[in-house]
C-alpha cells in the first residue's frame, strides 16, 4: 500500500518482505535523502534504528542498510543503498537524525566510506590509538598478514582448517572427495 | 566710613541705589554696570558682616521718620545677623556664580538685587505689612529671574511659582488684614504682646492664614509640588538662591510669627515639619533627576529645620543656634554647593554624573556636601542633629526620633546612590568656568572651616585628641597626589604608632587590650599596604583616619565622643570600601547598614539620657533594657550578625584586598568593643536577663549560618567574609554569656580572629594579586609557587578550626567551658556543629587555591610580594608564641576581665584550670612536636627511593588527565551538603532586605505620584493644606 505510493515517486527495487513487520527494498543513492525524509515526516518512521554497511566485493559495491522504525505500526523498513566501492561516498544524514553521525564515523573508520560534512568524521572510535592500514573491515584487507607484521607471533603455533580437522577426527576413513561432494551439495537443493 | 558698614540699613540703600543706577550705568558700558552690580553685592555682604560684628544689642530701625507700615521697620539682632550673613554671602557668591546668566541682562541684575533685598527684608522687618511687601518683592524677583530663562521648563516652573506665590500673597494679605482688624497694629512685637486678643475664631483664622502663607513658602508636604517643579525647571543658580535664600527668608519670617501661634498647637508645626522631612526623603528615593532630587532634599531639610524650630524657637541663643542654626547652616552650605555643582555638570539624570569626577576639587566639595546632608561628622549637621536627637530623647519623643532617623536614612540612600554614579566616571569632558567654580570651592572651604570649628567647640577640652588625627588624615589625603605612595604609607604608619603610644598611655584594662588590638594590629597590617605600587591618593589618609577613630573610640568617655568616633570610623571605612574596583553597590549597602547602625546607636544614646558612657550604668532597669537593645542592635549590625549580615560579603569582597584585611581583622572588633562597653556598664541589668540569653542565641545562629554560607561560596573573599561573620557570632555569644570566662573567651577569640583573619586575607590578597581572580575554582596548585602564602593560610585555618596545638584550640576550649559553665548546653552543641561546618569552608579554601591541580596560565606565578609576606610572618610568629605559651596573654585577658567580675580561671604553671577542665598549651605543643618529628624521621628512614612527580602523574583510571581545569575538583564542592542543608541557607535575609528596599521604593513612587506637574493640582493641594491646618487648629 504505502510501498505502492512510494513507488510512484521513487525508484524502489528489490522489495522483499522479510517478516510481517520488516520489509527491505533498494533505492538509488541520489534518492536516499528524499526517501528518508518522506518516510520520517509523512509516514511516521521516526526512528532510525541503525545503519550498517556490507562490503559486497563481488559486486564492487558497499551495501548500506538504513533501518527505519515506526512506533505506531511496529513496522520497520530496511532501505538498501548500493554505493560504488571504488568511489565510496555517501550523503551524510546527520541533519535528519543527530545520532547518525556516530554510525557514519564507524562506517568511515571500518569501511572507508566518506560522508561529506558529517561531524567529527575523522575521529576514530575503536582505532583511536592510531591506525595506518587500510580500513580493517574491507574484505580485501588481510588481517592475518597485518597481524603478522604488527604483533609478535609466538613460534610453534599450528593452524588447522576446522572442517578438515573435524573430518579427520571424526571420520578418518571416509574418502575426502566423497565428503567434499556431500558437504558442498548439502547446502543446495 | 566705618559707620556705613555698621548700619544694616545700608544693605537696602546700597541695593536700591545700585538697582536704580544699574539702568543708567548700563549705558556707560557693560563693564561698569557689572562692576556696580558686584560692588553692590560685596558692599551688602560687607555691611552685614560689619553690622553683625559691631552688634552689642538688638538694633531697631525706623526709616524715613514715619512709623510703620508706611516706613520700613527693621530689627537687627543676633538671630537676624546670623541669617542675613548667610543670605548675603550666598547672594554674593550666587551672583558670581550666575555671572554668565547676569552679564547680558541688566534686568536680571536688577532683579537679583531685588531678590536679595527682599530676603533681607523678610528677615529683618518687624512689621507685618512690610513683611508682605518683602515677600512680594522676593516673589516677583524670583518669577522674573526664573522667567528670564527662555525655555519651556523654566517658563512653566515660573508660572507655577506665580500661581503659588499668588496664593501665598492672598493668604498673607488676608491674614494681615484680619490681624490688623483684631489688634489694630501691624507691628509684630505689638501683635505678639496682644496675642490673647487673637484667641477667637477670627484671630485664629488670621494666624492660620499668615502661617499657611509662610509655611507654603517653605514648601510643606504635600503642598510642595510647585516647589519641586521650580527646583527642577529653573536655572541651577536660581534654584540655589531659592533653596538657600528665599527659604531662609520664609523660615525666619515664620520664626518671627511663631509666638503668635497658640503654644498648645505647636505640635501641628512639628508634625508638618516631620511629615515634610520624612515624606520628601521617602519620595526622593525614587528620583533620578539631580535637581529634582536636590529639591526633595531641600524641602526635607527645611522640614527638619521647621521641626527643630517648633521645638526651639523659644530656646536660648546658643541652643537655638546650635540646633536650628546648625541644621540650617548645614542645609544652607551643602545645598547651595550641590545646586551650583548641578549647574556646572548640566546633566539631568544622575546616571550621567560620572562626568563630575573629572574635577577633583568639585568632587571633594560634592562629597563634603553629601556627607554634610547625611549628617556625618564633622560637618555641622552632625552636631546639630546629635543635640536635637538628645533633646528629643530626654523628652521621650520616640516616634519623632524614629521618623527623623528613618527619614535621614532615606536621604542618605539616594544621595549616596548619586555619589556612586559620580564615582563611576565618564569619558565626557567637564566644561567649567572659573566664575562657577570659585563659589563652590569657597562654600566647600567654609563648610570645612566651620566643621573644624565645631569639632573644637563641641567636643570640649578633649577635642584636640579628635581634632589632630582628623587634620592629619585630611592633610595626608590631600598631599596624597604630591608625595610618593611609600612615603605616604610611612607617614600613616608613623602617625598610627604615635597614636598607639598616646592611646596606650591613657587607657588601661580592657580598653588597653582593645587599643592594642586596633592599633598594633592596624600597624602590622599597614605594612602590607606597601605591596601596591600605586595606591589611590586618599587611601592612607582614610586608613589613618579609620585607625585613629578606633583609637578615639577606646579613649572616649562621653556618648558624643563615642558616637563621633563611631561615625568617623564608618565614614572612613565607607570611603575605603568604595575605592575598590567594583565596590560601589556593595559600598552603598555597607553604608546604608552602617548608617542604620548609627541610627540605632543615636536612638539608644538619646533614650539613655546620659551624656557619659559611665552614665549608662545608672539607668533604671526598664529603660536600660530598651537602651541596651538599641545600642546592641547598632553594634550587631556592624558585626554582621545573623539577619543584618547582608552587607558583609559585598563590603569585604569588593574592597581592595589589603583593605579587606583591615575591615575583617580590625574594624569588626569595633562592634565587639561597643558590645563590651555596654555590657560592662549595664552589667547589673543585663546579666542573666532574657536579653543576654537571646543575644547568646543570636550569636550562635550567626556562627552557624555564617559558616554554612561560607561553605557554599565560590568567591574566596566572600567565603572569608562569611567566615568572619561566623567567627563574630562566637564572640557575640561569648560576650552575651556575661561571665568571666565568657568575656575572656570573647577577648581571646577577638585577638585570635585578628591573627588568623589577617593571615588569611593577606595570603589571599597575595594570591589575587598574582592570579587576578577571586573565583577559587580558577586557581589551584599554588602551593609550589607560593609556599609561604600556603603556610600562612594553613596555619590560619588550623588556628581557626580550633585544632590543637595552635591558638584556636584555646578559644574553643574557653568557649565550650564557658558555655557549659553558664548552662547554655544546646547553644554549646550548636556551636560544635558550627565549628564542624567551619572545616568545610576552610578545607575548601586551602584545597581550591593551594592544592590540587595548577593551571597552565599560572605557570609563571611567583610568591606574593615581600610586603605582604612580612606582616604574615609577624602574625605567624605571634601565633606560634601565643600557641606555645598561652598563659602569656590569656592571663592578661583574665586579669582585665577580672576588674568587672571574679575570675574563674586559675593557673598552675602553664596549666589553666576552670571549674570544668584543664588545658596545658605548652605541654600539648611539645608533645605534638615530638611525636611529629619522630614519625617524620621514621617515614624518612622507611623509604628506599622517592620519586618526585608532577601534577598529572596521578592515577586516572589508566588514562591521563587532559586539562587541569577538569581535574581540579573545586567548583560547587559541597554539592551533597547543599542537597542536604541547602534549604537552611536560602537567602532569606537578603530577600527580606530586598523586600524592604522594594517596598520603600514603591511607596516612594506612589507618594511622588501626587505631584502631577499640573498647576491646578498644586493649587488644590495648597488649598487643602490651608483647610487642613485650619481644621486642626480649629478642632482643638
Amino acid at each position, binding site marked *: 500500500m504505502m510501498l505502492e505510493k512510494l513507488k510512484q515517486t521513487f525508484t524502489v527495487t528489490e522489495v522483499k518482505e522479510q517478516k510481517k513487520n520488516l520489509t527491505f527494498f533498494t533505492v538509488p543513492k541520489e534518492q536516499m535523502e528524499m526517501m528518508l525524509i518522506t518516510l520520517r515526516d509523512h509516514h511516521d518512521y521516526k526512528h532510525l534504528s541503525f545503519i550498517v554497511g556490507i562490503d559486497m566485493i563481488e559486486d564492487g559495491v558497499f551495501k548500506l542498510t538504513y533501518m527505519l522504525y515506526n512506533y505506531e505500526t511496529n513496522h520497520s523498513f530496511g532501505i538498501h543503498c548500493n554505493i560504488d566501492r571504488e568511489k565510496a561516498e555517501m550523503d551524510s544524514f546527520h541533519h535528519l537524525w543527530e545520532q547518525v553521525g556516530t554510525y557514519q564515523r564507524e562506517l568511515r573508520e571500518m569501511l572507508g566510506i566518506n560522508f561529506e560534512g558529517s561531524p567529527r568524521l575523522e575521529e576514530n572510535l575503536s582505532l583511536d590509538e592510531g591506525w595506518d592500514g587500510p580500513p580493517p573491515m574491507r574484505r580485501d584487507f588481510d588481517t592475518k598478514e597485518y597481524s603478522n607484521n604488527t604483533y609478535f607471533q609466538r613460534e610453534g603455533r599450528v593452524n588447522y582448517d576446522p572442517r578438515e580437522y573435524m573430518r579427520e577426527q571424526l571420520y578418518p576413513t571416509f574418502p575426502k572427495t566423497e565428503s567434499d561432494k556431500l558437504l558442498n551439495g548439502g547446502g543446495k537443493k | 566710613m566705618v559707620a556705613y558698614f555698621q548700619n544694616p540699613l545700608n544693605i537696602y540703600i546700597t541695593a536700591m541705589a545700585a538697582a536704580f543706577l544699574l539702568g543708567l550705568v548700563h549705558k556707560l558700558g557693560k563693564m561698569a554696570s557689572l562692576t556696580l552690580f558686584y560692588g553692590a553685592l560685596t558692599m551688602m555682604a560687607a555691611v552685614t558682616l560689619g553690622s553683625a560684628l559691631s552688634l552689642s544689642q538688638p538694633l531697631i530701625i525706623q526709616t524715613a521718620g514715619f512709623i510703620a507700615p508706611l516706613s520700613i521697620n527693621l530689627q537687627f539682632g543676633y538671630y537676624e545677623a546670623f541669617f542675613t550673613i548667610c543670605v548675603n554671602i550666598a547672594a554674593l557668591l550666587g551672583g558670581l556664580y550666575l555671572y554668565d546668566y547676569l552679564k547680558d541682562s541688566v534686568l536680571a541684575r536688577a532683579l537679583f538685587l531685588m531678590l536679595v533685598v527682599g530676603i533681607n527684608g523678610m528677615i529683618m522687618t518687624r512689621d507685618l505689612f512690610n513683611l508682605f511687601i518683602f515677600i512680594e518683592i522676593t516673589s516677583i524677583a524670583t518669577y522674573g529671574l526664573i522667567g528670564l530663562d527662555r525655555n519651556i521648563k523654566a517658563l512653566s516652573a515660573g508660572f507655577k511659582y506665580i500661581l503659588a506665590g499668588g496664593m501665598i500673597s492672598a493668604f498673607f494679605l488676608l491674614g494681615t488684614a484680619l490681624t490688623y482688624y483684631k489688634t489694630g497694629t501691624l507691628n509684630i512685637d505689638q501683635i505678639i504682646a496682644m496675642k490673647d486678643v487673637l484667641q477667637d475664631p477670627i484671630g485664629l483664622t488670621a494666624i492660620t492664614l499668615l502661617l499657611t502663607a509662610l509655611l507654603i513658602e517653605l514648601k510643606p508636604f504635600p503642598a510642595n509640588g510647585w516647589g519641586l517643579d521650580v527646583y527642577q525647571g529653573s536655572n541651577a543658580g536660581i534654584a540655589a538662591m531659592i533653596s538657600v535664600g528665599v527659604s531662609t527668608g520664609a523660615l525666619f519670617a515664620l520664626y518671627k510669627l511663631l509666638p503668635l501661634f497658640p503654644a498648645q498647637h505647636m505640635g501641628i508645626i512639628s508634625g508638618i515639619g516631620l511629615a515634610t522631612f520624612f515624606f520628601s526623603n521617602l519620595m526622593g528615593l525614587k528620583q533620578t533627576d539631580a535637581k529634582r532630587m536636590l529639591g526633595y532634599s531641600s524641602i526635607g531639610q527645611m522640614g527638619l529645620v521647621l521641626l527643630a524650630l517648633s521645638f526651639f524657637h523659644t530656646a536660648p541663643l546658643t541652643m537655638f543656634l546650635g540646633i536650628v542654626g546648625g541644621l540650617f547652616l548645614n542645609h544652607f552650605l551643602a545645598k547651595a554647593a550641590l545646586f551650583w555643582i548641578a549647574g556646572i555638570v548640566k546633566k539631568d539624570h544622575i546616571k550621567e554624573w560620572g562626568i563630575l569626577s573629572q574635577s577633583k576639587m568639585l568632587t571633594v566639595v560634592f562629597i563634603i556636601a553629601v556627607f554634610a546632608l547625611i549628617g556625618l561628622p564633622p560637618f555641622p549637621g552632625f552636631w546639630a542633629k546629635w543635640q536635637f536627637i538628645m533633646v528629643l530623647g530626654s523628652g521621650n519623643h520616640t516616634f519623632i526620633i524614629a521618623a527623623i532617623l528613618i527619614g535621614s536614612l532615606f536621604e542618605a540612600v539616594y544621595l549616596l546612590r548619586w555619589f556612586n554614579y559620580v564615582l563611576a566616571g565618564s569619558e565626557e569632558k567637564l566644561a567649567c568656568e572659573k566664575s562657577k567654580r570659585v563659589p563652590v570651592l569657597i562654600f566647600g572651604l567654609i563648610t570645612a572651616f566651620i566643621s573644624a570649628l565645631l569639632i573644637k567647640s563641641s567636643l570640649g577640652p578633649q577635642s584636640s585628641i579628635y581634632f589632630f588625627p582628623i587634620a592629619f588624615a585630611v592633610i595626608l589625603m590631600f598631599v596624597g597626589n604630591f608625595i610618593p605612595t611609600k612615603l605616604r604609607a610611612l607617614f600613616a604608619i608613623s602617625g598610627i604608632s604615635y597614636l598607639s603610644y598616646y592611646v596606650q598611655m591613657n587607657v588601661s584594662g580592657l580598653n588597653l587590650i582593645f587599643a592594642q588590638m586596633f592599633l598594633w594590629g592596624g600597624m602590622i597590617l599597614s605594612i602590607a599596604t606597601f605591596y601596591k605600587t600605586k595606591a589611590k591618593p586618599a587611601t592612607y589618609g582614610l586608613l589613618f583616619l579609620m585607625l585613629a577613630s578606633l583609637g578615639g573610640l577606646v579613649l572616649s568617655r562621653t556618648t558624643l565622643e563615642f558616637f563621633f568616633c563611631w561615625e568617623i570610623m564608618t565614614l572612613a571605612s565607607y570611603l575605603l570600601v568604595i575605592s575598590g574596583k567594583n565596590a560601589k553597590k556593595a559600598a552603598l549597602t555597607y553604608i546604608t547598614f552602617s548608617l542604620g547602625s548609627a541610627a540605632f546607636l543615636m536612638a539608644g544614646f538619646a533614650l539613655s539620657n546620659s551624656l557619659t558612657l559611665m552614665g549608662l550604668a545608672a539607668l533604671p532597669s526598664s529603660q536600660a533594657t530598651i537602651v541596651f537593645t538599641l545600642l546592641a542592635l547598632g553594634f550587631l549590625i556592624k558585626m554582621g550578625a545573623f539577619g543584618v549580615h547582608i552587607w558583609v560579603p559585598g563590603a569585604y569582597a569588593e574592597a581592595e584586598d589589603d583593605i579587606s584585611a583591615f575591615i575583617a581583622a580590625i574594624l569588626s572588633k569595633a562592634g565587639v568593643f561597643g558590645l563590651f562597653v555596654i555590657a560592662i556598664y549595664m552589667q547589673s541589668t543585663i546579666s542573666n536577663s532574657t536579653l543576654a540569653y537571646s543575644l547568646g542565641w543570636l550569636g550562635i545562629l550567626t556562627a552557624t549560618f555564617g559558616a554554612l554560607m561560607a561553605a557554599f561560596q565560590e568567591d574566596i573573599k566572600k567565603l572569608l567574609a562569611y567566615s568572619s561573620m561566623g567567627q563574630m557570632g562566637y564572640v557575640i555569644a561569648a560576650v552575651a554569656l556575661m561571665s568571666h570566662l565568657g568575656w575572656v573567651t570573647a577577648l581571646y577569640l577577638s585577638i585570635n580572629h585578628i591573627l588568623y583573619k589577617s593571615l588569611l586575607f593577606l595570603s589571599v590578597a597575595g594570591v589575587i594579586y598574582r592570579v587576578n581572580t577571586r573565583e577559587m575554582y580558577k586557581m589551584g596548585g599554588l602551593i609550589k609557587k607560593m609556599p609561604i602564602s600556603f603556610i600562612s593560610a594553613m596555619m590560619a585555618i588550623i588556628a581557626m578550626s580550633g585544632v590543637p596545638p595552635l591558638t584556636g584550640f584555646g578559644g574553643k576550649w574557653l568557649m565550650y567551658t564557658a558555655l557549659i559553665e553558664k548552662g547554655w548546653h544546646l547553644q554549646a552543641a550548636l556551636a560544635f556543629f558550627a565549628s564542624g561546618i567551619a572545616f568545610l569552608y576552610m578545607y575548601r579554601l586551602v584545597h581550591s587555591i593551594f592544592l590540587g591541580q595548577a593551571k597552565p596560565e599560572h605557570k609563571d606565578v611567583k610568591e606574593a610580594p615581600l610586603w605582604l609576606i612580612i606582616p604574615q610572618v609577624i602574625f605567624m610568629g605571634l601565633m606560634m608564641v601565643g600557641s606555645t605559651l598561652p598563659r602569656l596573654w590569656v592571663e592578661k585577658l583574665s586579669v582585665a576581665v577580672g576588674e568587672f567580675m571574679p575570675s574563674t580561671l586559675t593557673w598552675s604553671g602553664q596549666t589553666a584550670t576552670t571549674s570544668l*577542665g*584543664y588545658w596545658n598549651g605548652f605541654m600539648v605543643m611539645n608533645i605534638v612536636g615530638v611525636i611529629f618529628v619522630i614519625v617524620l624521621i621514621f617515614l624518612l628512614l622507611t623509604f628506599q627511593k622517592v620519586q618526585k612527580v608532577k601534577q598529572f*602523574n*596521578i592515577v586516572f583510571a589508566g588514562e591521563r588527565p587532559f586539562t587541569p581545569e577538569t581535574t581540579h575538583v573545586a567548583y560547587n*564542592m559541597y554539592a551533597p551538603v547543599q542537597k542536604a542543608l541547602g534549604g537552611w541557607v536560602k537567602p532569606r535575609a537578603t530577600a527580606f532586605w530586598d523586600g524592604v528596599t522594594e517596598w520603600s521604593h514603591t511607596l516612594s513612587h506612589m507618594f511622588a505620584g501626587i505631584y502631577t506637574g499640573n498647576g491646578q493640582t498644586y493649587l488644590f493641594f495648597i488649598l487643602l493644606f490651608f483647610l487642613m491646618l485650619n481644621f486642626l487648629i480649629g478642632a482643638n
Partner: protein
Amino acid sequence: MGPLGLKIIYTLITLVICGVYGLLLGAFMAKTMARVQGRIGIPLHQPFVDIIKNYGKRTAISHGIMFYLGPVFRLTGGIGTLVFIPVIFGSEYFSNFSVAGDLLLVMYFIFFGQLGMALGASEGGHPYSPIGIARGLAQMCAFEVPFALAIIAIAIQYNTFSITEIVAAQQGGILSWTFFTNPFAVVAALLAMLGMNMYPPFSIVLAPQEIPIGPPTEYHSAYLGMLQSNRAIFAAAKLVLFMNLFFGGATNFPVLVLKTWAIYMCSVLVGAAFPRFRPEETIRFFLRWPTVIGIVGLLFAKYYLI
C-alpha cells in the same frame, strides 16, 4: 630516668599494645564480615603482613611536601589522640599525658590528623581525594552533632571535662556507668561512632565502588603503611575514649579489651548488615534521629540527673 622517662616508656608500651590490638580488631572486623558473607576470611595476622609489606615497598612517589607530610600528620594525630587519653583508670603511668588537657582537647585533636591528611591528599591532585574529603568533612560535621550532645550531657552529669574524673565517677558497679545512667546520650554517641568509624552504611569517604578509594587514592608504600598503622591506633584510641566516657573505663588490660571489643562489635555488626548511604543521606540521617536522641539525652542529664 625520672618519672617523665618512665612515663614515656609506659606510653610507648600503651602505643604498642593499642597498635597491635587495633590491627587485630581490624582483622577481626574483616573476619566477621567474611563470616557474615559465608567466607573464611583473612587470617588474623593479615593486617600485620600488609603493613610490613607496605613499609617494605621499594619505590614511592611524592607529589610535594604537603603530600609527604600528610600521613605524618595523620599518624601524629592518631598517636597524639591516644596519648592524651588515660587508658587504664587508676594507673599513674597508663594515664599517659592526659594531664595536658581534658576531653575537649581530645575531641579537637582528633581533627589534627584528619586535617593534615586532607591537605596532603589534596596536594596529590587526584580528583577523588577532594571529593572523598568533602564527603568526609560533611559527614563529620553531621555526626559531630549527636556526639557533641552526648559529650555535653556527660559534662552536665559529671560536671567535669576531665576524662579521669569522668571515669572515676562511673566506678562502683556496672549500674553507675553512663550507659545505664544516661542511655540516651550513649545511644546518640554510639550512633555517632558508626559515622566516625566509617563502616557501612557510612563508608562514603572511601566508597571503593564510587570514588576508588577517596582521599588515599594516591597514597601507597610507606605512606599507606602509616595510614594503616594510624587506623589501628586511632581506632583503639577512639574505643578507649568511648569506653572511658560511657562504659566505666577499665582498671586493667583484659577489661579494656573486653569492653572495647564489645563497643567495636556495634559498628562491625551494623557495617555487616547495611549497604552504603549517599552523602546527603548520611548528613540527613545524623541530623535527624541521632540528634533528637542526643537532645533527649542532654535534657535528661540537665533536668533529671542533676
